[in-house]
């Protein structure tokens, strides 16, 4: 009982701290925006009213949001479907890892944005390009994390399984894959954030559609409040997706919630 109480006050002070910091940031934003009188930087209240306008009153955000999310959903699913088996294989089979390793290095090192024109030349200005870019932004992090999860399997557990006569297949299914789950989820979370970023970047840079197009349109008309409100929508979406992922992780892997990524 006593322990529960301590825990609860801990959560409470966490939240009051968060809210406190938020209010502080919002206040300084508001004050500086008012004093600067720069028409390109809206105040907090203008941003919020723009947000309400876009989301609830005119509802202009929904159609572009839907379009953008097509790319996220398809690109992310493609990433997961390819990256997890790739990471598992690289973590387990030596020669696959040796073959893949230079490419993994390349994909970790290069910035993705310069690849956007290439993707567009190859795939055109449609959904396919956007999906490809989201995929490129995401898959390497899921692959690398999955591989790390497989590699960092506790050697003591493998030995324990062998002592009971487990064969390679049983070790793989009963020990290695479950051990890798927390690391895979870490990769999925990083990948999700990157997917949102990748989507907006490609829409801003070349394929004018969805939220990126909306942002360019507002910026062109100097509607700073709507620009900020759209960015706010992107942030909220990213946060919602991440907490959904965290929820899934707690359901699937309750033994090892990695709090460092919160």
């Amino acid at each position, binding site marked *: 009982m006593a322990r529960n109480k301590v825990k609860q006050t801990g959560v409470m002070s966490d939240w009051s701290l968060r809210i406190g910091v938020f209010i502080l940031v919002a206040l300084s934003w508001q004050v500086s925006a008012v004093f600067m009188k720069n028409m390109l930087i809206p105040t907090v209240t203008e941003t919020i009213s723009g947000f309400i306008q876009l989301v609830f009153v005119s509802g202009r955000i929904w159609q572009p949001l839907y379009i953008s999310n097509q790319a996220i959903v398809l690109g992310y699913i493609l990433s997961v479907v390819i990256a997890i088996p790739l990471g598992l294989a690289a973590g387990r089979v030596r020669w696959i890892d040796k073959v893949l390793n230079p490419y993994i290095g390349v994909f970790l090192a290069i910035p993705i944005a310069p690849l956007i024109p290439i993707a567009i030349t190859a795939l055109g200005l449609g959904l396919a390009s956007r999906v490809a870019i989201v995929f490129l932004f995401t898959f390497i992090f899921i692959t690398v994390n999955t591989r790390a999860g497989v590699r960092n399997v*506790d050697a*003591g*557990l493998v*030995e*324990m*399984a*062998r*002592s*009971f*006569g*487990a064969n390679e297949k*049983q070790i793989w299914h*009963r*020990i290695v894959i*479950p*051990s890798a*789950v927390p690391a895979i989820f870490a990769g999925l979370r990083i990948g999700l954030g990157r997917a949102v970023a990748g989507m907006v970047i490609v829409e801003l840079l070349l394929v004018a559609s969805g939220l990126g197009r909306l942002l360019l349109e507002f910026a062109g008309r100097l509607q700073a409040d709507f620009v900020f409100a759209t960015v706010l929508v992107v942030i909220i979406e990213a946060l919602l997706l991440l907490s959904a992922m965290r929820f899934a992780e707690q359901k699937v*892997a*309750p*033994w*090892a919630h990695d709090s460092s990524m919160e």
Partner: protein
Amino acid sequence: MIQVRGLSKEFLGRDGEGTGVLAIDSLDFEVRDNEFLTVIGPSGCGKTTLLRIIAGLIPFNDGEVSIDDVAVTGPGPDRAVVFQNFALMPWADVLTNVAFGLEIRGKPKAECEATAMRLVRLVGLEGFERRLPKELSGGMQQRVGLARALAVNPRILLMDEPFGALDEQTRRLLQEQLLRIWDRERKTVIFITHSMEEAVLLGDRVMLMTPRPGRVKEIIEVPLKRPRGQETEKSTTFTEIKEYLWENLRSMQVLDQRGEA
């Protein structure tokens, strides 16, 4: 009966070739059926290596290891290991961990569960079946490890410093519990330990090993009557054997330090 004849084990150097470390050098001993053999020696005497060889987990260079005249070539259903660091699956609850060995051996699910339940009760973890390892104390975790080993009903129990990571009080309680279980279900036990008290309290015989390379220095009979418990430790025989072990271990440590300098 477990027979070890002229056993040698060399760990290879970093390059995977020669100039390695001789961990065990021509070891000879036997363990009788249903005997409790404790093995003690300073660190670096190869006692854990020896246990892993008997478990069939690692190969050896020279000599023979056999159980009832059958050579050991790998892990087998006649043996089960209790590990120093418990080696529990962190994602699986107590019952699943205890049933692990049975499931690996392809026993039907209902049987696995029933046996695991019986063992959970035997080690006194009733009510904790659905807990995860991280929700248990170290002592409880090792009871899970013990239950998992006993669940496959091995004739030989190989214990690698099983209580080494536990605090003194927990360790004593688990020693008593192990003795009670062993009195009821006799098995051949090889028990590696660092603790002289533990070696004498548990063992029918204590095997004393020397370090670098590991050799058998002496095997000492422990003529203390069973069941053993708190009273045992007050007897003069207990103290004498313990003192004798300490004299030997101490001289090895001193020699070792000179050797290193």
